[in-house]
């Protein structure tokens, strides 16, 4: 038998052994993590909605999930999620494109001031065009809006400067931007606030080269403020909700995800600080026969998320070293002022009764 390069390839390089002969739940396309996240490492997340799962699992597993923009303790617990706190490290909402990511960085450091900074609603509320979902109904006043944005951008700077690992989920290549200065919006103006104006807004679909260029530019920025940072890229397996191209949404999904996947491959080959985690492959791989998607063929089911995060924790963390999370203690700490005051107010009213004999 002639020798050839495949002879020395490990089992995971062969479809038959890695997929066909492996139970779906045990398919492991990660093979080996590029590095190990310790419980002391501060992990920040951003990207499309799929990145939220990483935050959820890390914080639930006792790892140091970095949150630099925390809700004020008086905010009722049931509104914390609605106000988009703790979804990501800071309150930036979904960052679907690399263009958005770089502009967030530049806005945080005063390097970019978009011309279109505020969307006003018919009832005189104020929406942030770059995070339109973080404040239900928008802000009631311009001062609230400006103060919240300033706090937010400060939290973004803190994140970039203090994180050890940045997990970024690439979501889309299609985007809408301002013609005047190229400001990239997370969503088309007019869909969730603002007003679409064809003379001011334009559609753009990013190429592989653009995504790679953006990621390089991002690394220049990030390493400039935090040289020890490492980046884990993932590609969101969630298909496009809609395409602005003149073609079927399935084609656009394939093109978009392919561009992102190729760009991720290129950048991780070129930059040692970048690693790729194959959540896209785990969810969309044929081995699961579409079983990780809900009936809408778009939403990812919890089983799929568990498969992804199980492999993430196995290959990228030292799970055995992680302390038990004590979220109840944390919640108690955060709520203590209001609870203490409510109790004292109650006692005060009772004492007013007792004082009367």
């Amino acid at each position: 038998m002639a020798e050839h390069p495949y002879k020395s390839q490990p089992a995971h390089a062969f479809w038959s052994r890695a997929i066909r002969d492996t139970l779906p739940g045990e398919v492991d396309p990660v093979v080996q993590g590029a590095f190990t996240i310790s419980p002391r490492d501060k992990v920040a997340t951003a990207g499309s909605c799929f990145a939220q799962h990483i935050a959820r699992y890390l914080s639930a597993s006792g790892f140091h999930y970095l949150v630099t923009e925390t809700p004020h303790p008086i905010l009722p617990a049931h509104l914390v999620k609605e106000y988009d706190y703790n979804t990501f490290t800071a309150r930036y909402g979904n960052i679907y494109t690399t263009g958005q990511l770089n502009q967030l960085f530049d806005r945080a450091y005063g390097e970019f001031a978009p011309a279109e900074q505020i969307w006003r609603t018919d009832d005189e509320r104020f929406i942030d065009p770059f995070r339109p979902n973080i404040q239900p109904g928008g802000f009631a006043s311009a001062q609230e809006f400006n103060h919240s944005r300033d706090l937010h951008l400060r939290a973004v700077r803190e994140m970039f400067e203090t994180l050890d690992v940045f997990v970024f989920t690439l979501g889309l290549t299609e985007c809408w931007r301002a013609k005047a200065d190229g400001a990239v919006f997370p969503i088309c103006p007019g869909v969730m606030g603002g007003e679409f104006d064809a003379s001011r807004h334009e559609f753009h679909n990013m190429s592989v080269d653009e995504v790679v260029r953006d990621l390089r530019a991002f690394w220049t920025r990030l390493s400039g403020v935090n040289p020890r940072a490492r980046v884990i890229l993932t590609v969101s397996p969630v298909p496009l909700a809609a395409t602005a191209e003149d073609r079927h949404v399935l084609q656009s999904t394939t093109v978009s995800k392919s561009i992102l996947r190729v760009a991720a491959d290129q950048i991780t080959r070129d930059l040692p600080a970048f690693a790729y985690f194959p959540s896209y492959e785990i969810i969309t791989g044929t081995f699961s026969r579409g079983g990780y998607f809900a009936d809408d063929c778009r939403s990812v089911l919890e089983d799929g998320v568990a498969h992804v995060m199980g492999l993430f924790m196995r290959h990228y963390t030292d799970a055995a070293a992680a302390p038990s999370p004590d979220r109840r203690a944390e919640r108690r700490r955060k709520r203590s002022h209001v609870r203490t005051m409510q109790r004292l107010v109650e006692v005060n009213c009772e004492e007013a009764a007792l004082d009367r004999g």
Partner: protein
Amino acid sequence: MAGRQQTVTPDGTAHVFIGDSHLFAVQDALAARPDLAGQVEIIQLRDGSVSPPIMKSDTGDKILNPLITARMERFADRPVRVHAAFRGNDHNALSLVQHARPFDFVLEPGDLVEIEDGVELLPRDAVEAALFMASRRVFRLLSHLSAALPENATLDILEPPPPVRSEAHLRANPGVFDAEFAAHGIGPWPLRLKIWQLYCRMLQDHAAEHALGYVATPTTALDGPGLLKPGFWAADPTHTNADYGVHLLDWLISADDTREGTYG
């Protein structure tokens, strides 16, 4: 004790007060005004006589305690105005003591708040949500009271008294807040005033939405910015004294329904 010894309820209307500790000032006032006894009823929720105010009916529905209904029905032969003063200190839970993470908010969209370093400007909606969470029992009580109101009665919400401006008075009369004042300081009066105003607006909105009346604090009890005048401060940080009760009683009973801005 101040207060005019006037003829009361000239139209024969009876007044039923129901609520918590803020009604002690009215109770004290009433003790000094025996002429009102036949026309005023006070249902004090803190004395245990009608506890719990909301209970389960035989069918499992939550209803107003029938003992409360019975006391409202005492004046079946004349018009009745029911004045609800439920709780009324929940706003103090947010603002009486300086929060470890100091905050402020914009009450009116056009206002400009001066923000000191280290103070967080919260969205008004967030503060309102926090206030609603702290005071949601008030709105439940109002709903149950509305549903059980006798046919000859109307219901209005009695505005809780405004905050005391003087830090010196609060420090001299800290009550149970002594340790918290010492540890964290007293909330700045402009914030305490705004939180109270926001809470009052929530009550006004509830009144408007449910076709209830709203009794604002007598303007004669307010200082320039709208805080409680010194003569009405009690010897604790959140309540009013008997003089305020007299003042309120006179104000309510002598009030002409058309008097602008006072009787909603």
